[in-house]
């Protein structure tokens, strides 16, 4: 493992640096919480992500920022393939090489006083820092989180601790409301803006149900994660965008399905 640290002298965009693992524990079925300590100065907005180098894996693994507290960075990830499984067995005290400050993140200035945050599965984590920032800004966010089943539910208590209204759905009805996040959208009352993160079918359903403006965070297989390779491009009403650099968050009005 390299120990050399780099910083970006302009203080913008990304930083490549080593982080210490403080905690790496299962949170739900196949879901882990990773708490890291290091230089978080490049992270400027909720909804941004980091790209993690793993020994023996050629490409880094992009994971969204769940929480940020000084130099402490919390990520929540699902073990899906070999890379994330490898990450799952790493221990406190070990180090990880991260590119931080990637992506545009959510812009919290664009919403009104009563935004609705909607997350599905591993799309839920970035909404936590977003909710925290919105509360700090004096806004009154509501949150809808959707999971497949009780075994996969996480972050419920953390959201409740923020003192905000939370609606929880499971597809199989094993916990919370039975159904999808869009079912909860019909019950949650007034909202003037939406922030969404989750699998594309969920985003599309939210887009269709919601009649207010909003920001939607997309997922795509990435090469570099910092805008160089054009691996994750998408078409928008305002031209081609790179999910990693010009996204992952797109404004509702620019989305082309």
């Amino acid at each position: 493992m390299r120990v050399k640290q780099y910083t970006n002298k302009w203080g913008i965009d990304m930083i490549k640096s080593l982080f210490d693992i403080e905690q790496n524990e299962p949170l739900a079925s196949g879901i882990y919480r990773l708490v890291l300590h290091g230089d978080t100065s490049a992270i400027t907005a909720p909804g941004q992500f980091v790209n993690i180098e793993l020994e023996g894996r050629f490409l880094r693994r992009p994971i969204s920022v769940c929480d940020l507290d000084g130099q402490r960075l919390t990520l929540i990830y699902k073990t899906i393939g070999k890379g994330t499984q490898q990450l799952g067995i790493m221990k406190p005290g070990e180090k990880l090489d991260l590119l931080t400050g990637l992506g545009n993140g959510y812009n919290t200035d664009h919403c009104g006083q009563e935004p609705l945050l909607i997350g599905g599965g591993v799309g839920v984590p970035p909404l936590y820092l977003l909710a925290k920032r919105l509360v700090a800004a004096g806004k009154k966010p509501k949150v809808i989180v959707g999971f497949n089943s009780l075994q996969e539910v996480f972050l419920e208590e953390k959201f409740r601790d923020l003192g905000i209204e939370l609606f929880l759905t499971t597809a199989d009805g094993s916990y919370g409301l039975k159904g999808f996040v869009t079912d909860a959208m019909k019950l949650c009352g007034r909202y003037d803006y939406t922030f969404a993160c989750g699998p594309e079918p969920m985003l599309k359903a939210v887009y269709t149900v919601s009649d207010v403006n909003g920001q939607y965070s997309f997922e795509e297989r990435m090469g570099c994660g910092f805008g160089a390779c054009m691996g994750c491009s998408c078409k928008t009403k305002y031209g081609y965008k790179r999910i990693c650099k010009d996204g992952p968050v797109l404004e509702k009005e620019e989305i082309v399905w």
Partner: protein
Amino acid sequence: MVNTTVCLSGMTLDNPIIPASGTFGYGAEYAQLYDLNLLGSLSFKGTTVEERFGNATPRIAECESGMLNSVGLQNPGLEAVCAHELPALAKVFHKSVIANISGFTVEEYVACAKAMDEMENVGIIEVNVSCPNVHGGGMSFGVSAQAAAQVTRAVKSVTTKPVYIKLSPNVTDIVEIAQACEEAGADGLSLINTLLAMRIDLKTKRPVLANKVGGLSGPAIFPVALRMVYQVYSAVKLPIIGMGGITSAEDVIEMMLAGASAVQVGAANLKNPFACKEIIETLPSVMEKYKIESISKIIGGAH
């Protein structure tokens, strides 16, 4: 003090390290991280006459020691590149660049070459012959000696800048194609482009890439690239820019011993955005370790 300078068709490079086309955009993302002027040169994103979105996503897959891409030459088109990207690049990179051009007809290659000929900061025109030839039945220009020679002649006739043909490894005999390009007047060769490859997702039981197949790059292809550079060096007199999976100063030396006059670093930049900088910084000490005083003296040294 070791000497890292090399020369490509009259263009002197402070060191032989050049970021490879398609992994470095037009330099902007990396210019925020380090001073690009430490690079030998820079081969910018493959440019076509018309703007291109490229292929559907997913365009990226991974494998042991490498990656696959099926980006499909996404670029803003010749006019935008000449009007915006190259002037912007010239502000942060004060050396000559390598203009990587692509086309689906001979006329498109010619149009790109003509435009690049007029750009002051273009030192070399690198012709990517891996695109399908729409008039030749969709087969890539680079898989036929005749088609590769035809593109070479056409491009040479419209520019006074050195023309390097970037060869595809997806051929039976790369030497034959290299020789055809040499006879057609090429000033140099770049090799290799990516190797055609695929991955299948076991969960969906479908190809990972939307395009089904893509180009393999990264350390997995280094020995193949090395072998092809070695073979081509034996058969032609042209300078060669060697590329394919280079990630370290040791790889640079190995590639130059095989016959490369300079190298390009591609996929390594995507994993480590500081890859070129690190290779350039470690090259002198690695040269000292292997008792190499001047890097240009080792070109083809393994023959």
